[in-house]
């Protein structure tokens, strides 16, 4: 089979696998988020936490619980990193410096998993599994919990209750994330991913040198890194590392894992609002954007567009693993930047201007196609709210989405949401570029160097975590700045989503009539896609013009 046929077949198999799991997983998630039955182990967790599993919270209370949990998580992880030398399984690693510890704690709590450190050189096993990997579970659950409140906002009427944070969190972790992670962890081990508690293991190499082979509970962390769209690798090279991603097969499994929840959540949405067509419309937009991006990046890489180095080498092979090649690398790169995953199996920094620029643009879309666990769906639903608002006006009615009116209050929260991330990206990048010292962190010269900074801020603000890794970001300035950007980029939008959910839940739904804008037809799918591309395109066009566009158009 040729590269092209294999590449298409791989994409087709991935789509088929996702389509197959879409319904059962989406349905299971809907069940988990709506049932009022607790499992016994969940009751134990509630008792251990001292929380009431039967309460239904108002949105501010939900938010307070969420923020308290995230704040304590950040604090706990920070302390863990600072004190790791006093703990078991530290492998003799030193305490993580304060700025890097803050950056890392913020990064994992916000589901970003930006890594300014090299895992194999910085972290002990206990910190990885009981500190970082725990956040992989809970931060993913927090994202889904937030979108659950938004969906409840659409489905509930005349109530101020949006759910129970502790219940959502616990159930998502125990009933969804943990079982899937467990199954795939065993699969990954069978396929070659390591799972042990060894330290570095020295071998005398064939050529007579010495090599220290690392150990660690990698497979158990790998699955949740992808399933929870976290992306924080056990090792610095992330999913390019052969111990994390040893073969073409594991590569496809990893891509599948990082897409499966985000692509299933629209089904959950459709099931919960009682009209699966609404979910199909949303997932269609996601698939369209994802597929277009896959085609664009793959084509750019295959044809070495505007890449002198690629032409000199004969292929865009720099930064890509031989066992994956261009097709599998591009597929991973697009999937990871269109979700908030940020795991990488190749060096995005060495992609063509068009391909690399596309990965930046993917994140700029707000990571909505399909986006992070939960955050992708609420991101696209907010954009749908904006699209419905403008389109709803054009049909001559006060715009309404799923029977809920979009009034000043709803538009305030939606507007603040879409304002937050671009503001963080652009102001952050503007500051970084304004200081000569921070500019010097770039590895590459010219527009590509600027792209590295733009990528870093875009990645942090959108909680992606991947990088144009040439940027030397382990400095006090970047650690602190990006840490703050990640926290704001995660929790400010959540505040607005929860407020919107509360505001929607309080409404009496409007009946659907012929005068109602239908939000499940191709027309709306086209409209939403257009609004997403235009709003994002207009926001970032000047910045992109000076980065990837300037690099690519020469």
């Amino acid at each position, binding site marked *: *089979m040729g590269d092209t046929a*294999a590449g298409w077949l*791989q994409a087709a*198999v991935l789509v088929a696998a996702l389509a197959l799991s879409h319904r059962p997983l989406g349905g299971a998630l809907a069940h988990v988020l709506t049932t009022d039955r607790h499992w016994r182990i969940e009751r134990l*967790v509630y008792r*251990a936490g001292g929380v009431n599993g039967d309460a239904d919270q108002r949105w501010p209370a939900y938010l307070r619980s969420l923020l*308290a949990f995230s704040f*304590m*998580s950040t604090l706990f992880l920070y302390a863990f990193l600072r004190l790791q030398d006093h703990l078991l399984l530290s492998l003799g690693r030193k305490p993580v410096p304060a700025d890097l510890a803050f950056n890392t704690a913020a990064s994992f709590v916000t589901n970003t998993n930006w890594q300014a450190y090299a895992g194999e*050189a910085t972290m002990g096993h206990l910190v990885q*599994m009981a*500190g970082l*990997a725990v956040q992989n*579970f*809970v931060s993913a659950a927090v994202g889904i919990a937030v979108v659950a409140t938004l969906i409840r906002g659409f489905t509930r009427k005349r109530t101020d209750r949006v759910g129970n944070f502790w219940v959502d969190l616990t159930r998502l*972790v125990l009933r969804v994330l943990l079982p899937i992670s467990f199954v795939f962890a*065993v699969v990954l*081990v069978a396929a070659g*991913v*390591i799972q042990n508690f060894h330290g570095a*293991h020295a*071998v*005398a*190499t*064939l*050529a007579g040198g010495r*090599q220290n*082979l690392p150990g660690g*509970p990698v497979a158990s*962390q790998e699955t949740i890194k992808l399933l929870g769209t976290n992306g924080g690798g056990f*090792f*610095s*090279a992330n999913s390019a590392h*052969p*111990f994390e991603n*040893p073969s*073409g097969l594991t*590569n496809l499994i990893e891509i599948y894992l990082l897409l499966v929840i985000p692509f299933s959540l629209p089904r959950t949405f459709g099931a919960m609002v009682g009209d699966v067509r609404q979910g199909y419309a949303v997932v269609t937009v996601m698939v369209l954007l994802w597929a277009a991006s896959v085609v664009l990046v793959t084509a750019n890489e295959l044809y070495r567009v505007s890449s*002198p*180095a*690629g032409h*000199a*080498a004969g*292929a*865009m092979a*720099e*930064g*890509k*693993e*031989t*066992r994956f*090649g261009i097709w599998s690398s591009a597929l991973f790169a697009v999937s990871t930047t269109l979700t908030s995953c940020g795991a990488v199996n*190749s060096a995005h*920094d*060495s*992609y063509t*201007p068009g391909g690399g620029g596309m990965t930046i643009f993917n994140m700029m879309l707000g990571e909505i196609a399909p986006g992070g666990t939960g955050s992708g769906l609420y991101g696209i639903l907010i954009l749908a709210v904006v699209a419905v608002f403008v389109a709803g006006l054009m049909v001559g009615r006060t715009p309404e989405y799923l029977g809920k009116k979009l009034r000043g209050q709803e538009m305030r929260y939606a507007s603040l949401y879409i304002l937050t991330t671009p503001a963080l990206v652009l102001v952050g990048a503007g500051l970084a570029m304004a200081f000569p010292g921070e500019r010097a962190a770039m*590895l*590459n010269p010219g527009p590509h160097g600027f792209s590295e900074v733009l990528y870093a801020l875009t990645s942090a603000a959108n909680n992606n975590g991947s990088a144009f*890794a040439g940027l030397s970001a382990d400095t006090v300035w970047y650690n602190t700045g990006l840490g703050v950007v990640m926290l704001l980029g995660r929790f400010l939008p959540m505040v607005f989503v929860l407020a919107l959910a509360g505001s929607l839940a309080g409404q009496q739904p409007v009946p659907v009539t012929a005068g109602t804008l239908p939000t499940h037809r191709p027309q709306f799918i086209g409209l939403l896609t257009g609004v997403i591309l235009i709003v994002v395109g207009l926001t970032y066009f000047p910045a992109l013009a000076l980065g990837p566009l300037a690099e690519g158009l020469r």
Partner: protein
Amino acid sequence: MARTTLPTALRHHLAALRMLLALTVITGVGYPLLVTGIAQAGLSEQANGSLLTTHGTAVASRLIGQNFALPARHPGDPHEVPRPDPGWFQPRPSAGGYDPGNSGASNLGPTNPLLTATVRARRAALAAFDGVPPAAVPADAVTGSGSGLDPAISPAYAYQQVRRVARARRLTPARVRRLVTRQLHGRDLGFLGQPYVNVVELNQALAEEARPGPRRPQARTGLTDS
């Protein structure tokens, strides 16, 4: 005010911490221990790094690439450029020198003149080293991988090295070529990833095929980045 809100806020955060600890016990301790237990019990070969052994001692992980360079002329000089050993199949250039403690890519951009120059220099050096026309050198031979630990090279690059290795090892090229052919990996399941040759496994097979002959250093330029 303070008397009522402060304890409430504190209670809130205390509950949050207790929930975090409860979930940490389950997902951060129980879960990895369980997976490790199963892995070590049933899949210990893979779980411990898919090690390759020669005479019972581990010499490599089949997943992690290695350097096949000549011994350093000035040990301790960090700037010394390693010279490839013509008696071994050479892996791809590595940004981290195949040090698993330092995985990662070069991150050089597609328009970076330094990368273009490096690629050109590698191409010229390899063409001379392997005795092939520069245009024939495949892309993976002149570019660094994403992990810096890539154990695989393209079949084309493996075959390109056959003549040089055979000469250095005083084996017939056909014999070496057979070795390579035996080590060809197709795509996973026929359509996943790319066909490749695992250099580490190939070199182990090579080592078992024949004792290495006297080494004649020929390299003019370094082939790996530091």
